[in-house]
């Protein structure tokens, strides 16, 4: 029996594995009044492009859109840190009435003169889409005057869901790709797509690739640089992480530059190892494959014994997952399994039909699979399944905490390194240190158990 709080329009977006043949609706607009955990198109674009650290990211709109995204993410840079500043045209009523183009032009010139960036991204917001400011024309003009790429990101909030924002971001980057010099790039070279260098993760991943003899041309976009993206078409392969945030760019590069792509995940032991093997397989290079095997073996030799103590404590505990992209959910299901834990609920904001198909294949009977959820649904399932830990983002955290459930932040906003082999250890530590905290014996949920 489903909890009472599910609206009838939402029923087709929730599935209990084993109840009926699998079918799940997804990639729909969020239902009005349902209190979706999703943001908007602008959010999708901002997530993808934000880590490019030597560009100005100017939000053309009222102040809110810029202010709510000011340095909330953990994307680190090894050099410039322009991405951590929040630039806005702070549109006022008069701008809305008479058009915001003059203000945008002046703001761009001012910021470019002040910061000397390698490029500027200009994000369109709801209001700009409505008043019809010609973003492209202003960008073109400034680009000509200042001699750097000035790229419009057509990310009006209402024009679809977060996935549409990914597309808008890729469209903007597409204008950069192919404009740089590709001389001197090794044939064993890749671009890393879809990693955002949260807590320095891309540095770890780059190191793995370099250890097996691969040159990384561009990080797209974690610790990203404009010049690298410009010459990224010189790489032999695009390695794409995440549920397609940068898939559109990879597809475009395949079409235009004949660069194939593979999809990987860096979370959890199996997926991390498989990512390296898959790249080595692509290059069909025995030496590289051997190096990858040695790397994985070396890393596991240190990691696995350390994981044991956590596994011993966590075996049999139950986890729920609700994340932005479904690809991360696959990895998390496996990572929890490695710790001996059972995943009883899993969902995402932006999964596709294929994503959910795969989720239902890898999960156990009875697991709840859910698309575009909201607080009432999430809390009902967390309670029903009596979970020991909930994995999500900042918006999910208070739902877990209010009910006395442990929580792990595995979203773009986290500040802990969770990718790769050392990330798996961090993940285990975090899950352990939250699940095993004595605080849970005081929360009403467990206190009641003690009594009964």
């Amino acid at each position: 029996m489903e909890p009472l709080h599910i609206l009838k329009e939402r029923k087709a977006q929730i599935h209990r594995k084993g109840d009926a043949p699998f079918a799940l609706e997804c990639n729909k607009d969020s239902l009005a009044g349902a209190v979706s955990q999703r943001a908007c198109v602008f959010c999708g674009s901002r997530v993808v492009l934000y880590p490019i650290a030597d560009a100005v990211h100017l939000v053309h709109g009222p102040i809110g859109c810029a202010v709510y995204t000011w340095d909330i993410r953990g994307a680190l840079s090894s050099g410039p840190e322009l991405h951590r500043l929040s630039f806005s045209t702070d549109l006022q009523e008069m701008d809305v009435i008479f058009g915001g183009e003059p203000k945008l032009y002046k703001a761009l010139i001012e910021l470019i003169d002040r910061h000397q960036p390698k490029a500027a991204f200009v994000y369109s917001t709801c209001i700009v889409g409505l008043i019809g400011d010609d973003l492209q024309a202003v960008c073109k003009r400034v680009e000509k005057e200042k001699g750097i790429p000035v790229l419009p990101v057509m990310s009006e909030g209402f024009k679809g869901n977060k996935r549409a924002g990914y597309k808008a971001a890729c469209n903007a980057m597409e204008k950069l790709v192919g404009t740089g010099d590709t001389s001197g790039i090794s044939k064993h070279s890749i671009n890393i797509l879809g990693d955002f260098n949260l807590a320095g993760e891309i540095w770890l991943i780059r190191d793995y690739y370099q250890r097996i003899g691969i040159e990384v041309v561009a990080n797209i976009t974690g610790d990203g640089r404009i010049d690298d993206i410009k010459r990224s078409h010189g790489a032999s392969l695009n390695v794409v992480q995440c549920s397609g945030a940068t898939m559109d760019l990879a597809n475009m590069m395949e079409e235009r530059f004949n660069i194939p792509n593979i999809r990987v995940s860096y979370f959890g032991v199996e997926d991390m190892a498989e990512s390296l093997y898959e790249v080595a397989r692509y290059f069909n290079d025995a030496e590289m494959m051997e190096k990858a095997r040695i790397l994985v073996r070396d890393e596991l030799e240190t990691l696995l014994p350390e994981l044991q103590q956590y596994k011993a404590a966590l075996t049999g505990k139950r986890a729920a997952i609700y994340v932005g992209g479904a690809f991360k959910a696959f990895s998390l299901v496996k990572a929890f399994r490695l710790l001996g834990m059972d995943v009883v609920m899993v969902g995402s904001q932006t999964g596709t039909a294929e994503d959910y198909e795969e989720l239902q294949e890898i999960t156990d009977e009875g697991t709840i699979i859910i698309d575009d959820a909201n607080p009432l649904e999430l809390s009902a399932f967390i309670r029903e399944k009596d979970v020991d830990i909930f994995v999500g983002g900042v918006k999910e955290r208070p739902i877990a905490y209010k009910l006395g459930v442990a929580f792990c932040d595995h979203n773009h906003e986290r500040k802990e390194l969770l990718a790769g082999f050392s990330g798996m250890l961090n993940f285990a530590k975090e899950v352990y240190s939250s699940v095993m905290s004595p605080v849970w014996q005081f929360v009403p949920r467990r206190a009641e158990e003690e009594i009964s």
Partner: protein
Amino acid sequence: MSKMPNYISTTNACKLCKPLGASLAFRGIEGAVPFLHGSQGCATYMRRYIISHFNEPIDIASSSLGEKHAIYGGSANLKLGLKNVTAKYSPELIGVATTCLTETIGDDVQMIIQEYRDEFQSGAGEPLIVSVSTPSYSGSHMEGFHAATKAVVEQLSSGGERNTTINILPGFISAADLRYLKELVSDFDLSATILPDYSETLDGEALNEYPLIPKGGTPLSAITRMGCSKKTLECGRTLPDSTAGTSLKVNHQVPLTRLGLPIGIRETDTFMSALAEVSGNPVPEKYATARGRLVDALVDGHKYIFGKRAIVYGEEDMVVGITALLAEIGVHPVLCASGGKSGKFKNSIEAVLEGLNCELPEVHENVDFFDIEERATELKADMLVGHSKGYTFSRKANIPLIRVGFPIHDRVGGQRLLHIGYHGAQQLFDTITNTMIAKKQDDSDVGYSYM
């Protein structure tokens, strides 16, 4: 006084947008669900932002407008959203705030809501619906907060026979401040309606079940009677001319007294006098003692902070209050800055500094952190006093940051910070003084363990 440069672009804003303030105010009403009429992102971003300060769930519904609604109007989705929120949450009130999107496409929200009532609300048990216009391109979150409070009063309160209750419109203070305020009025033996009151809804207990709507908030029954109260006390020196307080005065002849936020000794004294006057009771012993203890503490600690230079920033009324407190304890506020632009900021600062032998600080409204940092470097401050957003500069310039106001999202307990009353002044004084002592200790070669 040097003039702030007039930049076109905004870098690291020192304000938030209007619908956020409205959402906070609606959250302070019993049985209410805040609802943003706009695209989905607004509600989600604001929820996230509020969560990062209060560490509490906050469900803000959205009409989740898509492209076709932007073209043909958002009426159908607003109605669907109201229907779904009613079905799922069974609220007593839905507080609808508009966004830049719906203001610009020209949705007549009041008319749509009237249509909704006619079409779908059959009478008893249906939620009340209050609407407020909060286009994000005009004003900051504070205008949104006050506008929503005013809308609630205008759309729900009626007049009638006077009773002995008073209305308190405290402005945007912390959950701990609100709890203190409630205790205070009860100690004066007063019956008061405090609007809004998110002291429990945004700082609640651990629970076994997810609350559809968190308990607490100003009761609707009390709001409807606000027009019958014998007096309104409204806090804030930079308030708009037209507020919930003025509306109660104009529409229902409820006498209005406007005061500053009761932060610091003198502003608290004024507030206490007002409570004493309206209640006919003297200031309770407990507060007289607290004041005495505070003054004693100020004497004990004055040497460690006298003449220290402070930069204060944040929402205008909070800055005014903190500035008053700082000057009273001998700290020199050298820059008072806000992203708001009430036009009343400078005069308010001057008013609270009067008679304190304090040189007037630079006062700037409508500024961002780029502006603040530019001036700050020149002003050689010893401390920053404001919300978390000053942390970047604090770190860069190695100037300690004393966190007050909203948002505080790099520390726990922002919602439990007490700013108001003698107790609040005591806590702030201790924090400020100890921060300065710690800084001196950290910077010292010796590291004395006695003061």
